[in-house]
């Protein structure tokens, strides 16, 4: 039988796999398929002169740094002093920079406009990134399932055998083998 599980990239994934191997599942009987995330595809295809998925933070911090510098300098002659004006500069610069970048993307209709729901932040955790398939005996199923759950699998499923469903009338010609 087959046990399927979804994981994100993490040390737990390797712990799960090595644990299974230690408990007698052969390495040839573990199949891992890695899923690309859309953000990474964009990264590599992106032009040399554009940053990699963090442009929102780029703009925010650039403007934040500039306004903080000005806030501190003029803070010396303003009422509240350089510390408060510096922090005001940093915060307002960051917010303005973020909004500008955000709406600049919207207004001029570049790729960001139709941001699909499956677009994720670069480096974000907690997405399915790996689908693991383990081939095992029925008697091993509970052990495999427990190992997978204990190592932070998002979901675990099993497949006993493929059924021929075309007889029920509800189905698919193309998927039938033989």
């Amino acid at each position, binding site marked *: 039988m087959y046990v399927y599980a979804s994981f994100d*990239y*993490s*040390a737990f994934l390797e712990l799960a796999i090595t644990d299974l191997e230690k408990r007698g599942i052969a390495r040839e009987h573990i199949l891992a398929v890695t899923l690309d995330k859309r953000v990474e595809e964009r990264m*590599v295809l992106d032009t040399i002169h554009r940053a990699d998925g963090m442009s929102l933070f780029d703009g925010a*911090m650039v403007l934040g*740094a500039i306004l903080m510098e000005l806030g501190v300098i003029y803070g010396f002659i303003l009422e509240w*002093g350089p510390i408060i004006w510096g922090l005001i500069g940093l915060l307002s610069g960051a917010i303005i920079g973020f909004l500008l970048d955000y709406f600049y993307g919207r207004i001029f209709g570049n790729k960001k406009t139709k941001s699909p729901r499956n677009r994720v932040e670069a480096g974000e*955790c907690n997405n399915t990134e790996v689908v693991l*398939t383990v081939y095992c005996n029925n008697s091993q199923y509970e052990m495999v399932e427990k190992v997978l759950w204990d190592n932070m699998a998002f979901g675990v499923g099993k497949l006993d055998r*493929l059924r021929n469903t075309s007889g029920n009338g509800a189905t698919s010609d193309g998927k039938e083998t033989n």
Partner: protein
Amino acid sequence: MMEKKQIESIRNQRRPKGIVSELTVNLLHLKNPWITAFWSAIFPGLGFLIMGSYIKGFLLIIGATIANSMGHINQAIIYGLTGQAELAKQILDTRWLLFYAPLQIFATWSSYHLTADLNKYAILAAREGSGIIPFKIGTWDIGFLDKRNPWVAVAWSLLMPGLGHLYSHRIPTSFYLLTWWIGMSYMAHLLPAIHQTFLGNFSEAIATIRQEWFLYLVAIYPYSVYDAYVNTVEYNILFDQEQSQFLIDNYQNCKFPMPAMDNRH
């Protein structure tokens, strides 16, 4: 069986993505060249630190700090921008002033070009799919790729520049930021000024601060937040890529019994 694991995953490294060392993870990643140029313009050398080019970065930082403080350039900037041009002229030391300009211009220009060049190699490395060894244990420290939360790095950096980099294990930057921040805050009388500000004694706060040292802090603070965030994200991405390559190399065996149709019905 277990030995093969490592060897297969470490590929031909003509175009490496990065290396994991005890003290830091140095890696190639796509960046906007204008961004690194901007940080080098804010303070010469910072752009190099973003790219992981430490020796050049530290040389420029030390050079610029000497030229700046001997020439009283920070003080002159404050006077100049607050409409006290006469004072600015008086305080500038012409024996040092002109050292600063070439350093700053070179740092900005060179950061731009370094980034544009490294971007090409980042793309080549990504296409080659070269592997890296994700763990390095040595005499002084243990460096490894791990998934870390970039906002935790931001929070620590806001609390004190350098701590965010300690969290993401980028020790050279962290060492520089911490020594710089502690030294410059002391020289600038930052903490007493914060104290007075929060007590509402604004005029006393302004009087306490030593302006030209204070301006050094201003460049470092947002930089540390930005760099900590970016590096944590990039390390996460590198972790993903490395693990993905490892799984593909080791767990897609041709002997895997693929599910077949059960025809007994």
